[in-house]
């Protein structure tokens, strides 16, 4: 109890809140007791440290914010995309290996072609021309089919009434070209899917990949009015999160984006399911498919389900399965260009700033 009072006196002395009389008295005390004198010195130093820590922390967060701001405006070459810087970097880094590899490849190719040309007599020109012709024929056929399909489509379009969406969930962008991730159960048996952006605009979307086991679906926005953003502010984490790590989510339990906060409760999900993890967060129907982010702005999971028999027990699919799902999808070469964001540009910003940046990338899913 006494110590508390002494500390309070020391603090008032340091900050200059003492009356002149008190001050004289305290200074005498300081002279007579080396303990108190030492406490004053130590505490002054510590207060300085704390203040400096606070200022530097604020300054650093301001720097991170400025970087993001300038990069978005295009005033500086932003970190992630710029082709040229990246090429120079990769070139410098790998030029030696690349040149060795290239020369080996060159020599091998020369050797093989010499071998081949010395062995085979030539009469292949006709074959090539023929092949060309066949491709052309197939192309024509394709075009014809397309025209027919278009005709049919148009006929259908005329007859359909405006679509009324009945159920919904949440999804978030994983590639600037309009690829989104959500839960498979959100879009199960869907005939029409639309996603609604932060401006309230509905965009038509299509399922391109579903993994029912892990409850994951990748959607693609097919609407022509979709404007691709420059970059995605969060990253997708490849490893699992730690227990007790603070997390937050954004989702659409109603027609408005809603923020929720909690922590990772267990590394496994319902009945020890290792595909998911347990989190403690307030979730309602419509939150499904929402991103679970940690303080560094990394997506660690996708909110998927809650246990009905227990209060506040929510499960999330672990984020590493997004990578797995994408790898499956990319077996089809037309999806080769999708690239998951690997660095988080909101790292170091405070929560409000992070949420402000991220909420534009979270979409409401509407299903009919």
């Amino acid at each position, binding site marked *: 109890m006494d*110590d*508390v009072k002494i*500390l*309070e006196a020391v603090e008032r002395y340091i900050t200059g809140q003492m009356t002149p009389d008190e001050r004289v008295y305290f200074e005498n005390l300081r002279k007579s007791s080396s303990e108190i004198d030492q406490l004053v010195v130590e505490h002054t130093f*510590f*207060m300085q*440290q*704390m*203040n*400096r*820590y*606070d*200022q*530097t*922390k*604020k*300054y*650093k967060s*301001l*720097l*991170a914010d*400025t*970087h993001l*701001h*300038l990069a978005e405006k295009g*005033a*500086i*070459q932003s*970190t*992630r995309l*710029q082709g040229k*810087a*990246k090429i*120079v*970097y990769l070139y*410098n*880094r790998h030029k030696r290996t690349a040149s060795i590899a290239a020369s080996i490849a060159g020599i091998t190719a020369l050797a093989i072609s010499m071998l081949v040309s010395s062995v085979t007599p030539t009469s292949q020109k006709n074959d090539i021309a023929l092949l060309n012709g066949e491709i052309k024929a197939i192309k024509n056929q394709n075009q014809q089919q397309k025209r027919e399909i278009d005709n049919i489509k148009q006929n259908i379009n005329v007859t359909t009434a405006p679509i009324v969406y009945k159920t919904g969930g949440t999804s978030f962008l994983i590639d600037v070209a309009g690829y989104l991730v959500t839960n498979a159960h959100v879009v199960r048996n869907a005939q029409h899917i639309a996603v609604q952006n932060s401006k309230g605009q509905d965009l038509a979307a299509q399922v391109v990949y579903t993994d029912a086991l892990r409850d994951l679906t990748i959607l693609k926005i097919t609407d022509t009015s979709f404007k691709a953003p420059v970059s995605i502010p969060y990253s997708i984490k490849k490893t699992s999160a730690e227990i007790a790590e603070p997390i937050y989510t954004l989702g659409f339990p109603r027609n408005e984006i809603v923020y929720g906060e909690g922590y990772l409760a267990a590394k496994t999900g319902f009945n020890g399911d290792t595909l998911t993890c347990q989190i403690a967060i307030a979730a309602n129907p419509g939150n499904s498919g929402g991103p679970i982010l940690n303080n560094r702005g990394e997506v660690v999971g996708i909110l998927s389900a809650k246990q009905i028999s227990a209060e506040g027990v929510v499960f999330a699919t672990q984020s590493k399965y997004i990578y797995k799902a994408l790898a499956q999808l990319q077996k089809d070469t037309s999806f080769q260009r999708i690239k998951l964001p690997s*660095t988080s540009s909101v790292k170091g910003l405070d929560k409000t700033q992070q949420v402000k940046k991220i909420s534009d990338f979270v979409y409401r899913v509407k299903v009919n």
Partner: protein
Amino acid sequence: MKEANTEKALLEGLARSDRKAIEIIYKENFNAIQSLVVNNNGSADDAKDIFQEAMVVLYEKAKSGSFELNCLIKTYLYSVCRRLWLKKLLYQNRFTINDVQEESISVEEDLEDHDQKDQEFELMEKAMGSLGEPCKSLLEAFYLQKRNMQEIALSFGYTNSDNAKNQKYKCLMRLKKAFFLQYKTEL
């Protein structure tokens, strides 16, 4: 003359953590540093880290008040970044740096200062992180946001300000212990 004035104003702004000043300095210098780092085996992310560390060095220097403006901010930042990046390359066993411009001023001393301050910053961050809630928020509210005890007692749900004061004292002792224990062994 005018140039010196604006440079001085920028540094003063920086010392106050003025957003505008930071933005101007950032905009004018970042691309040069990025190409320095990227042309010398670094990535764009490395460039961002190095540049932001140099900005912290400049900030510390501006705040110390003893900053003699004997060179342009541009020159200073470039020299600091070059040194920092060289250090990092040495650490990774890659030695050379090809650049357009040599360091024109010596920044060795400033960087030693910065290392010390950086270590102190990390110690405090660790000590704060080890505290847990509500200790951390309580101390932040009192010492950093300078809110008064009655208000704190109310918003943290203590029955009176004396209770809050006792709790604050305990938290502070824990923080001090965590900080000084490391401080004495490391520095």
